[in-house]
Each structure stands twice: as structure tokens, then as C-alpha cells.
């Protein structure tokens, strides 16, 4: 059988989109590589998931995730490595998993085609057939290389956050937080509140300090004040125009060099700070490869990163494919969740046109002629909120650019690519041989050709190659997949259509079941 919608990503965007569509009676599957739903923002320990009563936003998310579990197929620990188009227009979502085969729920099994038993490598291929796809794959950290950044104990800011939120483990006992962007604040606050020493937050941009943090100017006074108060309470210094420019240690990080920077991030002076862990992050890289694989057009985000181009209903340029959250532009979890809902509504409108028009007609207040399609799907109030929050996300990104001076922090032997262990000197060599873009540098010096496929070093390589802005990824597959999983794909057996099940559940209206956003 065929799903009406497959959602890739179980963060705020994916869960909101999947739930909106499932409540409208669509047959929905959501796939995530993680152990639990939540994505990055709502990542939680198993215990927090079982005993709610922590943060109101997380509790609300957990209720939604619970509701989704009863109405849709939720495939955790399933990593999507590619999506392909069938001649009849359906999409095949190719996953690899080590999880035990799904059983139990109504649509399970029937929709999963080509699932093969666990092979010698323990990895199984699972293929889902669907009419529509929602890409809600989020983002990953954007690290910048510096001497010693590959020492154990140096983590990305998001990595330290994920370790704390998902595992309950602080990255160290004496931690330095560095990089740029508002995300450094929750990372430092979380660690300090977990009871470890945060020796300092070093923000490479700015110069104004917390009292004039851009969050304030953007109407997020409460949020900024909350972080400021928490950092003050734990006596965590917040220093702007400073950054970790080197990490030192034999087998693990033992100290870092913190530099004062000019506005282009050239080093003015340095000092050494002893520590046992570092959390560094210079913003995020949206994960767009499932979209680019299918031919979705991209546009440069504020910081130049390629993001998927979408219309007001979050539809990409490829028929049947929607995207929401960080893959369409970095802007935080609230925006991601809103976009997930809007995309969910658009998918419902596409699948059941009569349902959506009949419910939105009663609520539409404007008498102006609506442009065809969009306002029925995205009522004005949502469209305006969406624009406002998107603008907020863009303003934050503009306030925290990456400045070129970081390239001066590197030494000849600093690894730029951690996987293939390519030092700066080899990239320089490639450039001197005439390589002036990331692709030709890659062919000559092999950065970005290892396991991570350039996700970690891609931005840095692009800058060091002298590209004006990073190009969209051209990875043939979105995730490395084992030969075992590929082999088990060899004999997919499409199963009989099972349309009957959908109509039985199609009664629910596409309402706004989870419209209780906080006011800000």
C-alpha cells in the first residue's frame, strides 16, 4: 500500500506536520534516526519522557508525540538514506535500521515494502511508498576548525547539548563554551544548571554584551533576561569578541587558548584557560540533501547556506514534496513547529481538497479576494506569524555572521577534514595547483570524502577554497549505508493496495488540535 504522507524527521517540525495530517485522517508515517521523538530542541532522557512535569513546552510536545503514536506509523532508529521517484509518481523512502521489525499497529507491515530480515551486519533495509513527502530533517552544527579541535573533550555546542539533554551527561566538569550565536546561551545555561563549572562563554561577534543582546532588540527580552540571570547566578562570564582559537592536550583537551578578536576575528591577544571540555558552535547547517537529491531548488539563506526553496504553503519546487523547519532556513524550534503545521495543512489540502476548503471557509474573515489556493491552506493569521518569526530568525542570523579572520587561527598541520585527516597545508597545495572551488579542492586533497561526506568540514573547505558561498550538497546518498542494507533491498516486493483503511479514519477534521503557542 501507499502512505498519503511520509515525514522524515521527528523534531518540532516533523511531529507537528505528521500530527496535523494524521488528525485529518491521512495515512502517515514518520521516520527518525533517533531513539526518541523530539529532534534537537525536544531531545529528552528516557526518564523525562516517562515522567512528564518538566518544562511546559516539552510536556506539550510529549503529549503530541503520544497522540501521533496512536494515529500514525512512527519508525524510530530508521535512517533515511535516499528517496526515489517511481514511474507512477509515488515516492520510495529508503531507510536503514537496526531496530527490530515493526509489528502491531494497523498500517504496519502493509506499507513497508522490501523490508528484509536482519543480515549479518545487523542492518536492515526498509522501504516506504508514499504519495507525499515532508522533509523535516533539521540542521547540524557548523563547527570551524582550529588547532586541537579534534581532541576528545572538544564537542560541538549542539553535541554537548544533545549529550546533556538526551543522556543527562555534562560534557565535562570545567567547560568552556565558544563560537557565535544565540544558541551558546542555552548551552551554557544548561551546563551550569547541571552543576558543572562553565568557565566562560566566548562569543566571537558582538561587542555589546548581554545587556544589549540582539534577543532584546527582537522582542525576546524575557528569554534573554532569563539566560542573563542564569549565567549571573552561576557566575559564568559572557565575553564578546573573544573565542577559543586553539585546544591543547595529549590524549584529551586539557586547556584552550582564548583570544580577544577584532571585528573580523583576527587575533589581538591570547591567554590560556585550563578546562576539560569545550563546546563550540558557529551556527547551523540545514540538512537539505533529501531535497536536493529529488531536484528541489535551493536558495541561499541569510548566511549563504543553501536551503530548500518553498512557497507560503511550504511546498518545494518538486511536486509532492514539502519541507519545514531548519531545511528551509534556520530559525529555531517555534518557527519549525509552526512550519510543520502549515506544511501538514497544505498536505491535507492536497490529499483531501474538499475537507480543507470546507473548514477554512467558515473561519476566513477577510472579504478581499484570496489569491488562489494559498489562503485557504494558510489562513492570514498563520501567514503573518510565519513571516514575523522567519524575519526574527533571519535577523538573528544577520547579527551573528562568521567573519573570515578564523582562517588565521589555523596552522599548516591543523586538520580541516577530520575523517580523511586532511591538514590545512594540503588544501593550500590544492589551491596553488589551481583549485578555486570546494569540488576541485576535494578531488585534489580529499577533504569531505570520508564518512561524514563533508558535513562537518564542508563550510570551512568552501571558505578556504575561496568560494563566495557554499554550494548545495551533491551527495548521491543522504546517509552512508552498509552493503548489507543495500543487499537486502535487492528484492522489494510491493504489496497489495490497502486504501480501505484510510477511509475508515478519514472522519477527523483538519482542525488546530495543538494551537497553544506561548505568546512570544
Amino acid at each position: 500500500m501507499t502512505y498519503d504522507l511520509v515525514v522524515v524527521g521527528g523534531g518540532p517540525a516533523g511531529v507537528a506536520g505528521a500530527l496535523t495530517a494524521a488528525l485529518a485522517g491521512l495515512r502517515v508515517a514518520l521516520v527518525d534516526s533517533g531513539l526518541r521523538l523530539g529532534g534537537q530542541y525536544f531531545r529528552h532522557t528516557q526518564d523525562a519522557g516517562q515522567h512528564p512535569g518538566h518544562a511546559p513546552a516539552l510536556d506539550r510536545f510529549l503529549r503530541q508525540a503520544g497522540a501521533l503514536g496512536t494515529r500514525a506509523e512512527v519508525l524510530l532508529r530508521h535512517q533515511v538514506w535516499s528517496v526515489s521517484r517511481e514511474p507512477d509518481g509515488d515516492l520510495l523512502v529508503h531507510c536503514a535500521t537496526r531496530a527490530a521489525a515493526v509489528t502491531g499497529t494497523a498500517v504496519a507491515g502493509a506499507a513497508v515494502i522490501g523490508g528484509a530480515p536482519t543480515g549479518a551486519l545487523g542492518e536492515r533495509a526498509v522501504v516506504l511508498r508514499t504519495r507525499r513527502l515532508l522533509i523535516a530533517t533539521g540542521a547540524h552544527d557548523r563547527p570551524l576548525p582550529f588547532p586541537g579541535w579534534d581532541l576528545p573533550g572538544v564537542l560541538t555546542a549542539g553535541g554537548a547539548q544533545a549529550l546533556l539533554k538526551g543522556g543527562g551527561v555534562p560534557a565535562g566538569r570545567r567547560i568552556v563554551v565558544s563560537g557565535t550565536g544565540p544558541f551558546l546561551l542555552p548551552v551554557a545555561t544548561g551546563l551550569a544548571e547541571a552543576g558543572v563549572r562553565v568557565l566562560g562563554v566566548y562569543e566571537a561577534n558582538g561587542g555589546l554584551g548581554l545587556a544589549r543582546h540582539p534577543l532584546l532588540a527582537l522582542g525576546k527580552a524575557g528569554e534573554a533576561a532569563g539566560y542573563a540571570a542564569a549565567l549571573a547566578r552561576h557566575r559564568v562570564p559572557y565575553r564578546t569578541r573573544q573565542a577559543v582559537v586553539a585546544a591543547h592536550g595529549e590524549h584529551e583537551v586539557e586547556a584552550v587558548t582564548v583570544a580577544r578578536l577584532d571585528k573580523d576575528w583576527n587575533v589581538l591577544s591570547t591567554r590560556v584557560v585550563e578546562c576539560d571540555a569545550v563546546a563550540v558552535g558557529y551556527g547551523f547547517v540545514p540538512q537539505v540533501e533529501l531535497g536536493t537529491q529529488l531536484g528541489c531548488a535551493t536558495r541561499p539563506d541569510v548566511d549563504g547556506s543553501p536551503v530548500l526553496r518553498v512557497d507560503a504553503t511550504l511546498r518545494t519546487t518538486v511536486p509532492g514534496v514539502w519541507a519545514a523547519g531548519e531545511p528551509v532556513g534556520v530559525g529555531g524550534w517555534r518557527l519549525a513547529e509552526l512550519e510543520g503545521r502549515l506544511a501538514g495543512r497544505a498536505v491535507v489540502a492536497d490529499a483531501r481538497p474538499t475537507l480543507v476548503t470546507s473548514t477554512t471557509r467558515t473561519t476566513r474573515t477577510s472579504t478581499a479576494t484570496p489569491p488562489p489556493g494559498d489562503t485557504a491552506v494558510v489562513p492570514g493569521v498563520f501567514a503573518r506569524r510565519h513571516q514575523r518569526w522567519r524575519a526574527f530568525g533571519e535577523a538573528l542570523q544577520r547579527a551573528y555572521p562568521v567573519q573570515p579572520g578564523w582562517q588565521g587561527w589555523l596552522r599548516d598541520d591543523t586538520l580541516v577534514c577530520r575523517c580523511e585527516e586532511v591538514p590545512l597545508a594540503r588544501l593550500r597545495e590544492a589551491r596553488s595547483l589551481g583549485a578555486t572551488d570546494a569540488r576541485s579542492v576535494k578531488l585534489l586533497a580529499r577533504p569531505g570524502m570520508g564518512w561524514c561526506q563533508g558535513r562537518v568540514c564542508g563550510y570551512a573547505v568552501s571558505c578556504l577554497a575561496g568560494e563566495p558561498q557554499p554550494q548545495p550538497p551533491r551527495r548521491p546518498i543522504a546517509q552512508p549505508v552498509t552493503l548489507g542494507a543495500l543487499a537486502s533491498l535487492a528484492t522489494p516486493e510491493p504489496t497489495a493496495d490497502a486504501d480501505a483503511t484510510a477511509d475508515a479514519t478519514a472522519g477527523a477534521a483538519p482542525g488546530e488540535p495543538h494551537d497553544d503557542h506561548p505568546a512570544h
Partner: protein
Amino acid sequence: MSFHITVDGRPVPVTPGQTIGAALHAAGVRAWRTTRFGGRPRGLFCGIGVCFDCLISVNGRPPERACLLEAQPGDEVTTA
């Protein structure tokens, strides 16, 4: 209830739902493999399955990402 896994024969406590990577980190084990060329130590870096720094062999299986893999009672982990 918490349980143990073994790391090179040594018991390491695990809170249910923790990944192998989180359990190792909590026990102060922050590097568990070395790189192919430079022999440099590696452990967690991105924490979310993107960087592949954290590859580890559990129960003799081929390497998997420690940051994504949930620890199970009785797991035997070998570091390089």
C-alpha cells in the same frame, strides 16, 4: 533500573535509555578509537550521528555510531 555494560572488560554503569556514547562519557571514557593515518584519539564530537567520529564496536559487530546506539544490558564494548 540502571545496569552495566563492559568496556574492555571493565563495568560501566548505564541509566536506561542512554546511548553507549553517553554512558562512556559519563564514566570518563572520552576516546575509544584512533584514526587510520595519524592514530589520533576520537570520541563524541557532533553528538547527533553526523560526524562519525564516535564509531565503536559493540558485541563484536562492525563499528556503529556510539552517539546513536542505545546501550543494552550485557553489551560488551571494545576500544581500539
